[in-house]
Every structure is written in C-alpha cells, then in structure tokens.
C-alpha cells in the first residue's frame, strides 16, 4: 500500500458542542446568592451532626449525609489558606492575568471558600487577611463578589 497520506494535508473538521445550559441553583444555594446580591452578606450553614460550617451552604452534609437547617452569617473577611498566581490567559478566566486564586477561610466558616484576588499580588501569601469586595452590579452570582482584596 502506498503511503499517500504523507503527501497530503490531512483533513480536519472544526466543530463545537453548542448547547445552552440553565443550571438550577436550588433553594439553599439561592438563599446564599440572593444574600450576596441584595445584602452583600455571605451566608454559611452548619451541619447539626458534625457541626461543620459550610460555605457555600449545602442542603446536606456530604460526610454525615443529613439535612442542614441552621444558617450562619459569616464575616466578609478571612484568611488565605492556599493561593496560586495564574500566569496564562484563557477565555474561561473572569479577569486578565496575572490574578490569583485563593482558598479563603472566612471568619466563622470551617471550610475554605475559593475566589480570586486581582490586586496587590506581591503581598499575597498564605495567612494574609483578605476582605470581599462586592461588585457594583449584582445578579445573584458567585461573581457578585468581584474579588477579595488583601487587607
């Protein structure tokens, strides 16, 4: 068999899976996002069994598998427990690089909350205190918190 494929430009077809999505936030998640939108407050909730305070709040504790009913208002400040400064650009990112992802232990929460830090990256290290900066226009979305700023 002659290897004719060596001499031709291979054919490729471009495509994209174009499906619109509408994700349900659910009752518990909606309460969290509505509080961000309308009151600029960050809510968590506490598992009645293991006492873990979750943020974002859940309807059910993954570990105990029981329903969660107790709501807690968390601070809008916290401590960075992990971070990375991102150096590559991609359209999935909400802001131009360099920016940082940080896991923030919000005051009053037992789990980390992931968000972005845009400024002052030279001062960013684990252990620094950060504060949520809310967006001017809010729509009940995780980016109603524009980012966290280093205090």
């Amino acid at each position, binding site marked *: 068999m002659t290897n004719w494929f060596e001499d031709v430009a291979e054919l490729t*077809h471009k*495509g994209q*899976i*174009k*499906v*619109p*999505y*509408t*994700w*349900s*936030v*659910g*009752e*518990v*998640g909606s309460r969290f996002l509505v509080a961000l939108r309308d009151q600029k407050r960050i809510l968590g909730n506490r598992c009645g069994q293991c006492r873990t305070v979750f943020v974002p709040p*859940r*309807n*059910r*504790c*993954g*570990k105990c*598998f029981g329903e969660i009913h107790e709501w807690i208002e968390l601070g809008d400040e916290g401590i960075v427990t992990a971070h990375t400064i991102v150096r590559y650009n991609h359209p999935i990112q909400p802001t131009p690089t360099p920016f940082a992802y940080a896991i923030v232990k919000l005051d009053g929460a037992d789990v980390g909350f992931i968000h972005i830090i845009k400024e002052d990256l030279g001062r960013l290290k684990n252990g620094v205190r950060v504060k949520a900066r809310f967006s001017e226009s809010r729509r009940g979305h995780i980016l109603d918190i524009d980012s966290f700023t280093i205090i």
Partner: protein
Amino acid sequence: MARRVAIVGTGQTYHRSQRLDVNGRELISEAVIRCLEDCEVSIKDVDAIVIGNMDHFESINYVDAWSVEGSGGHMKPIMKVTTGGTTGTSVAIAAYYHVASGLFDRVLAIGWEKNSESDTSAAIITCSDPIWDRFSYAGAIPSLATEASAYMEQYGVTQEDAARVAVRERAHAGNNPYAHLRKPITIEDVMNSPMLAYPIKLLDVCPRTDGACAVVFAAEGVAEKIALTPAWIKSTSVRHSTTWFGDVDYNTGLVSLTRASKEAFEKTGIRESVEEIDVCELYLPYSYAGLKWIEAIGFCGPGEGPRFVSEGNTDMGGKLPVNPSGGVMSTNCIGATGLIRVAEAAIQIMGKAEKRQVPDVKTAFVTGFGGCWWSDAMVLGKKKPL
C-alpha cells in the same frame, strides 16, 4: 464463582418536567435517601457507588466526582458508567458485577438526569459521528422514524396501531405516583398531536424529565437480612455493537434486542417467554417500539405486534403486562430511565408496587435501549437463582 445478587431497595424522585427547586446533587440525594429509607440501610453501610447520566445534558464533567455530596460517596469507592440511553441499565449491571465479584456487599446504583437544564436535542445531536452522521442521522428521532415507516410498509401497520401503545403507557402511568406524565390520552389525542417526523407525532415519543433513581444491590447472605423479598438478578445481557446509524438495518427487527433477550432467556432457562414472564418493564422510547420491539424479543411473531397489543395482552390484567409504571413515554430522565425499569421490575417482585402491582410476580423482564440501536436485557426473579 460469581456471587448471587439481589435488589433490596429502590428510591425515585417524583419526576417532573422541571425541578427548579433543586440542583443536580440535591435531586440525586432525594432518590438516594428514599432508597436508603426503603431498605433501611445506612449510607455508612454502602460499600460502593455506581452513578450514570449523560455528560452534555447538564454539562458536568466527571459526574462521579461532582456528585459526591448528593450520592453519599464521601470517602467511598465511586465509579461512573455511561452508555447513552442504556446508561441506567448499564449502571444496574455494573452494580450487579460490583457485588457478584465478591468485593462489595452493598452497592448503590444511581441514575439521574436534569434534562431541563439543557437543550436535549442540541445535546443528543452530538452523539452522531461528527464527520459522517451528524448532518443527517442526528440524534434519536430520524432513525426511529425510518424504522417506523419501514415497519408500517412491511406489515401494513397503521399510525392508530402505534397510538394504542401510547394510550396504554399513559393509562398505566396514572397508577404510578412518581410518573411525570399521568394524564390519560386517547388515540385521537395521539393522532391529532403535531407531526415531528413521519410517522412520529408528539404523543408517540417520550418526554424529557428531571429525575433520579437509586437502587441498592446486595450479596447473597446480606440481601435476605435486608429485604423480606429480595429481587434476585437472574441474568443480564448487553449488545452495543453498531457505531454508525447507516449500519443499522431498519427493515429488520431490533437485532440487538433479539440477541440480548435470547441470551438473557437462555441463561435463565426461559423457553416460553410470554408464559414464563409475569411482567415487563421495557425501554420503549416511542410508540412503534411497543409493537415492533416486542416482536424482536419474541413475545409474538413478525408483524403480530399490533394484534398482540390490541387484544389487551400487555395491559394491566393482561397475559403479560408491559410497563405498569407508565414506561419511558411517561417519564424520561434519560440517565435514570433504564435504572427506573430495573427498579420498577424489582418493586413488582417485592410486592411493593401498590396501585400498579401485578399480582404474584415471580419473574420480571427488563430492557434498555440507546446509543446506536443498542439493547440491554435483564431477568429478575423472586426465587434465588441456582
């Protein structure tokens, strides 16, 4: 030597066209909790989990990872199995093998879909080969319509014959509190519904549904302690051969179903299927399947489907009731659909089907359909297999 395996508990959501009140994980947990309550098994006693759905219906990659809070999979073995429309039956069969292998005693099978979150057609279109099939045989309806029109021509079957199946499914769904579409319909309703692709009309096809189903499979020795009447898995069989829609012979019966059924029957020694099976939960995504595919299984001869159905054999109280649950045409949360068939068959054996109960079920037969004209088959029984 494979261990014997039985279903000991089932749980479903109340299936609806749209569940805006819950996210996907929360929907899953509703079915899981209902299932665990049904068999009084604690999540702590579940040894492993198998979950399935179709990625592009919700755009969640790695659903096994994402679902952990809803499935109860926190610090447990969890695996995702997905094969298109047959996903639910594939998940059930995977849970069966988890237990049969001897490695896990209690395994939770979960199928779910939140079809309202996407454009189902836009997503299913992408199951066709991107180079060869996507522009023509895209998604489910074109190939089904091809089969239906060939079948009508071959045997003189009418649209009214098919409508009779749609009417039956909806009548049965009225007895099932979990079913999505429960309003009775008539043959006229079906005939007057909008034409989608000749001869398929809106009421000839399944809806799209938000829902989840969970089933606990347990090993011999464990199952009997959990359930009064475990539903034993007697055989499973799968045929997922074809890759391109152009390779399917639409004039023949559903070959994959014929072969899967034959294997499932042979493994359990079923010779006279109509006599020996007490109830069926068949994956019938459209009305014509309720005629032609029962021929493929061997319940009647080629072209005899319409008469077999019109004589009432497949109705509640008939010789071989088909889909007491209302079937796929009443509820179709795709990744859960096959598993609902399995769960409903188990419920019939366990005698827990309430208003939709067929009396004295000893043997139940389940099928799955999906992909490129693929089929799955399972036989469940009240008596522990030899």
